[in-house]
């Protein structure tokens, strides 16, 4: 059975393989090899026999084909109501077909499945809310991605992404040494303005263990500094682990369940080693989904709970504002029309809609919040979720997918979007680049830093207002 050098059924095993794959600009050779890649039908049949169980079987079978899911899907809407974008069609014509044919499908079919699974569904789970039978096609599409991955049919960037987790236990090539150095560097950088600020590494029995997204230390370490400053102002007893600091999981987007488990276990090991009272993750939706919501299942915890209680960054911010650990200077509240992007992964799929509004009630001057429609649990995906943002070959489809968010934001009349999720933040940034609608976008941390009242004892001796 011919397999490519880069495109094959074996996940990345080591740094050398990862670098070789990375060196293949835009995956040219990778995708050329994929044209020749054959399906291991026996393996596919076995995988189905072992993992395709009554929930999915029932979902595929009892789907009443009523079409209620059509209008729930933003990709159906932005693609001129193309019937091929109806969620039921998307899953029945891919997973449904694989199951009906008992895995007897060829490479061309799997390439089609790959396209549907990664460019026609962001796994936002919104269709599941609108299905009378409660059929969650996003969940099934996630499963379908797993089947694709196991057969080698996965977008180049996501094979790299899951490979990163396998090699570095991070979505980017950040080693533990580089991570620790970045933490030390960021703490040092702040000393003039924030004397005594620390980023405590591997402190045992702290109240909070903070985890983040590898992009932060890699590309914008100031985010880490901002997190540190806010914990410093709030007087938190916190720490970061030297290992197990990465909360995200591109392997979840890739359907590489083995790497998902490796990644989640790394964070849980840090929890067990450092025994924090709880974990706080950064402003990222899928990171929370991967490590807090789904991760315990990959790791084999029967109660579905991580070793210590975990909260999303928005929960920590709301709590800090509520308890007065962080106080907002009323004069510095946002006084321009602003809207809030509800992230699918922790709003629809984790119930934190009201927490977001609680934060906004502190930081936005009354009357300036412009809610999107629909919002909260019913909000649409940013347009770039589920890995869509990062896949070069599907960029035109992704750009089209941004049109729904563009429309929603324009309808609010807001000039600023608060997006406490990396994926949403990226999508909205790209949306502004692509369509130039004149908006700004922000995480919560930089906004809070500029609004929060600094206790006297934390100010530098010669008080100096920051820019």
């Amino acid at each position, binding site marked *: 059975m011919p397999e490519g050098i880069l495109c094959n059924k074996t996940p990345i095993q080591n740094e050398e393989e990862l670098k070789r794959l990375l060196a293949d600009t835009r995956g040219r050779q990778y995708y050329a090899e994929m044209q020749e890649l054959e399906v291991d039908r026996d393996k596919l049949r076995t995988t189905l026999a072992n993992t395709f169980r009554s929930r999915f079987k029932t979902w595929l079978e009892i789907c*009443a084909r009523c079409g209620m899911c059509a209008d729930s899907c933003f990709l159906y809407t932005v693609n001129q109501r193309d019937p091929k974008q109806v969620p*039921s069609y998307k899953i029945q014509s891919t997973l449904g077909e694989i199951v009906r044919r008992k895995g007897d499908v060829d490479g061309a079919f799997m390439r089609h499945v790959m396209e549907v699974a990664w460019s026609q569904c962001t796994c936002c789970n919104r269709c599941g809310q609108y299905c009378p039978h409660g059929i969650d096609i996003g969940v099934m599409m996630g499963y379908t991605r797993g089947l694709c991955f196991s057969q080698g049919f996965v977008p180049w960037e996501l094979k790299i992404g899951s490979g990163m987790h396998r090699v570095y236990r991070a979505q980017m090539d950040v080693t533990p040494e580089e991570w620790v150095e970045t933490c030390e560097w960021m703490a040092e950088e702040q000393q003039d303005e924030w004397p005594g600020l620390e980023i405590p590494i591997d402190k045992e029995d702290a109240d909070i263990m903070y985890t983040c997204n590898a992009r932060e230390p890699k590309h914008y370490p100031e985010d880490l500094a901002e997190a540190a400053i806010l914990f410093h102002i709030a007087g938190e007893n916190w720490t970061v682990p030297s290992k197990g600091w990465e909360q995200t999981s591109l392997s979840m987007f890739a359907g590489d369940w083995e790497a998902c488990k490796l990644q989640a276990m790394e964070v849980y090991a840090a929890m067990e080693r450092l025994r924090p009272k709880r974990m706080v993750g950064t402003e990222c939706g899928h990171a929370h989904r991967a490590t807090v919501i789904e991760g315990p299942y990959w790791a084999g915890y029967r109660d579905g709970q991580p070793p210590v209680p975990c909260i999303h960054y928005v929960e920590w911010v709301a709590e800090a504002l509520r308890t007065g650990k962080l106080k907002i200077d009323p004069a510095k509240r946002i006084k321009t029309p602003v809207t809030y992007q509800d992230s699918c992964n922790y709003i629809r799929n984790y119930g934190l809609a009201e927490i977001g509004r609680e934060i906004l009630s502190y930081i936005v001057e009354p009357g300036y919040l412009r809610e999107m429609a629909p919002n909260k649990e019913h909000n649409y995906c940013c347009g770039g979720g589920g890995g869509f943002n990062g896949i070069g070959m599907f960029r035109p489809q992704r750009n089209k997918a941004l049109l729904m968010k563009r429309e929603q934001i324009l309808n609010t009349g807001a000039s600023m979007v608060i997006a406490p999720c990396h994926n949403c933040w990226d999508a909205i940034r790209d949306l502004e680049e692509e369509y130039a609608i004149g908006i700004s976008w922000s995480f919560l941390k930089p906004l809070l830093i500029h609004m929060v009242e600094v206790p006297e004892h934390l100010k530098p001796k010669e008080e100096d207002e920051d820019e």
Partner: protein
Amino acid sequence: MYQFLTGPMLWISFAVFFVGLAARVYLYIKGLHWQMDRVAYGHFNDRGVKWALKSILFWLIPFKPMCWQKKPIFQTLFFLLHIGLVLVPLFLYAHVMLIEQAWGVSWPTLPGWLADALTIAAMVAAVMMAVRRVALPEVRIITTLHDWFVLLLSLAVLATGFFSAHQQGGGDVWVLAHIALAEALLIAAPFTKFSHIVLFFCSRAQIGMDYGIKRGGAKGRGIVW
């Protein structure tokens, strides 16, 4: 013929229906897996049960879930069809009378005019659903022969029932057709999409537990539909 259809065949139909659907429920539950489904069944039972019940109940109340709010016409068709197919047969005088004759038990029945009105409404709903299947591209593309079978058999049972109640003499043709089709429906139920008679409740309970136990049940506003 009448003797056979209302005798052995009726018992066979009910047996297949009840045993078959019970087996579907059993196999559904047996096939659930906490790790594969990524739902901690058996943990956080208070939330799990509450969300499962809510998940079922909401969809049985008009305008309760967002979907019904957004699709009032389809919602109306849905309720009319299911009232005609589920509630009317259970409280129809002609049906209850047969049971009383056989077993001596009975319960209140619908007035004839109401049963007629609900049956006509259900037939109209079924026809509208058929029109919808052809007319709307987003429904047409996903419609299969199986869906037509389920819809047309339902309509046929309703129509023959209605005609047998209103026939002007002329033998038992409508009655026989009605009984035969209804028995066909009962026998088909466990093996076709009619299995949603029970699997609707299973599936809705499962997604309710998924949300209640894992996806925000501990944090959220108690409902995502």
